[in-house]
């Protein structure tokens, strides 16, 4: 099987899930990595290190900023001339877009968020979550090449080998653009939920600390958000000691406590950490679906009947404002931090 793997990046920083895609490709035979951008030699090196046998490099100043239409056209031109059977991508906001466009050009389609890929002969069967991960479907695509985006942490990341090299083939960039990038404001993101091995999440309950006195001059809503932010500070401190990411329930996000990018569940943000700690989250159906792939769930909630306890391995029925900081202290001591 002729397999291409697109190495996704933001300003030259590779998305780690790209290496997972490379690892999967290697189980089917040789793997060709696709690197698009400008001045991306480090990524080419890394692609060889993670197992690529060949790199197709489109290095062009017009590709410095990701734009869906230029990346899509570059990809579809490559795929038309080289006829791969399969192109794998990590699932990111970028790949979801430009793979979708390239599929239109190639009269094929994209299968997104794959959690398993089985190959038998010419048939590729892909397992993916639907209905906010309440269900899973197996699908197959009839077009060629098949385009599949893989869900982060669903496939093992290969070991990186030092000093491994391979053939680099320069390919043409397609630079006809319909959009122009005017600027960025890059957030302090910390660990992304998609790549996180550990997630500590807060729910609506983070705003209910009765012992806090909000500063004067805030109205009720502002006071609630202020209290919630103090609550998320505790959640963040535990996440930081564990080297994890901060998540949130839909209720906490809808209430304006924390940005949408932190939301677990519903937006299709299905997470797969090794450890998921839920603080003050009761466990709405969408949230439980979103954390189904977590290896272990720990729940802290003052309501012993909260549905979150049904999916948890360990639970504490108690006040998160007391338990979470105590847990942070305990881990600090035990992990020597």
């Amino acid at each position, binding site marked *: 099987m002729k397999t291409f793997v697109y190495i996704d990046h*933001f300003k030259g920083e590779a998305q780690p899930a790209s290496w997972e895609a490379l690892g999967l490709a290697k189980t089917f035979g040789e793997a060709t990595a696709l690197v698009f951008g400008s001045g991306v030699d480090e990524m080419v090196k890394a692609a060889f290190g993670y197992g690529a046998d060949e790199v197709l490099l489109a290095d062009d100043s017009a590709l410095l900023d990701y*734009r*869906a*239409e230029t990346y*899509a056209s570059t990809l579809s031109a490559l795929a038309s001339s080289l006829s791969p059977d399969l192109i794998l991508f990590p699932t990111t*906001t970028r790949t*979801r*877009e*430009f793979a*979708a*466009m390239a599929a*239109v*050009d190639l009269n094929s*389609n*994209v*299968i*997104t*968020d794959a959690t398993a890929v089985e190959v038998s002969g010419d048939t590729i069967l892909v397992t993916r*979550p639907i*209905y*906010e*991960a309440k*269900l*899973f*479907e*197996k*699908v*197959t*695509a009839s077009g060629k090449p098949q385009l599949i985006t893989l869900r982060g942490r669903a496939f093992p990341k290969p070991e990186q080998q030092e000093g491994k090299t391979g053939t680099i083939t320069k390919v043409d960039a397609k630079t006809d653009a*319909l*959009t*122009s*990038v005017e*600027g*960025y404001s*890059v*957030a302090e*993101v910390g660990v992304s939920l*998609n790549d996180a091995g*550990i997630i500590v999440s807060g729910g609506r309950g983070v705003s209910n600390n009765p012992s806090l006195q909000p500063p004067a001059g805030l109205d009720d809503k502002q006071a609630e958000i202020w209290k919630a932010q103090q609550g998320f500070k505790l959640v963040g401190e535990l996440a930081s000691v564990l080297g994890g990411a901060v998540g949130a329930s839909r209720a906490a*996000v809808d209430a304006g406590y924390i*940005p*949408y990018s932190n939301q677990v569940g519903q937006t*299709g943000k299905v997470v797969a950490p090794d*450890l998921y700690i839920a603080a003050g989250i009761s466990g709405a*159906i*969408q949230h439980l679906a979103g954390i*189904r792939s977590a*290896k*272990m769930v720990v*729940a802290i909630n003052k309501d*012993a009947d909260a549905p979150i*306890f*049904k*999916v948890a391995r*360990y639970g*504490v029925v108690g006040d998160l404002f007391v338990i979470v900081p105590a847990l942070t*202290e*305990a881990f600090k001591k*035990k992990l020597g931090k």
Partner: protein
Amino acid sequence: MKIIACIKQVPDSEAKVRAEGGQVSWGDAPLVINPFDEYAVEGALQQKEATGGTVTALCIGPESAKEALKHALAMGVDDAILVSDPGLNNIDSVGAARILAAAIQKIGGVEMVVFGRQTLDNGSGLTPTQTARVLGWPMLGLAGQIKVDAAAGSVQVERVIEEGRQIVKAKLPAVVSVVQSIGEPRYPSFMGIRKASKAEIPVWSLSDLGTSAPAPLVTRTELMNPPSRESKVEIITGESPAQIAEKLADKILAEKVL
């Protein structure tokens, strides 16, 4: 400015969705406008308020999907169109994009098409981008903010991406998909609900669009309920928060998940 808001009808997010006999079942849960598409309607209405013009809600679906369009009408869109045809029962995202593009061309003079970021059912989020590609229009995806410069015939959006925000600009006509930062969807007004209840929603078939049913390129071979993950929870208790935390930390460390 002539704006289209593309919407879809899906089972309510609270529904207990199950696989039954190879089919998706959502019990007696209601079908509603896809929650992300309420943001699309909101974003479209904001642009109408800023620059004038009209908003048309466009939906592919069965006759019952008129209810989702009525929700958009009640929120304040000017009119609604349903594309409905038995040939569209099994279309995939590329198929939907081709049909929506055909409907947008038939409407004519459209300057902006607004989508929600994804639907709750399939969740792939591919259709907005693919519609832009079929139309040959620029795609401005995941916009948290939209600014139209009517005089220059251009639109600038702030995209909300994993790494932060990216400002991207394009000429109109363009396709935009929006995320929640666009603003809370407005509630249907009393007048809006009255207007929606009386509205005659035109239904276009494939022959009205002068096209045939696109063959699906992706087909489902199996539908599965996820493995049950109910686990017996061990509740940690203790004399003090410190002692509970100590015990819990030891349990977690023993599981070797760190």
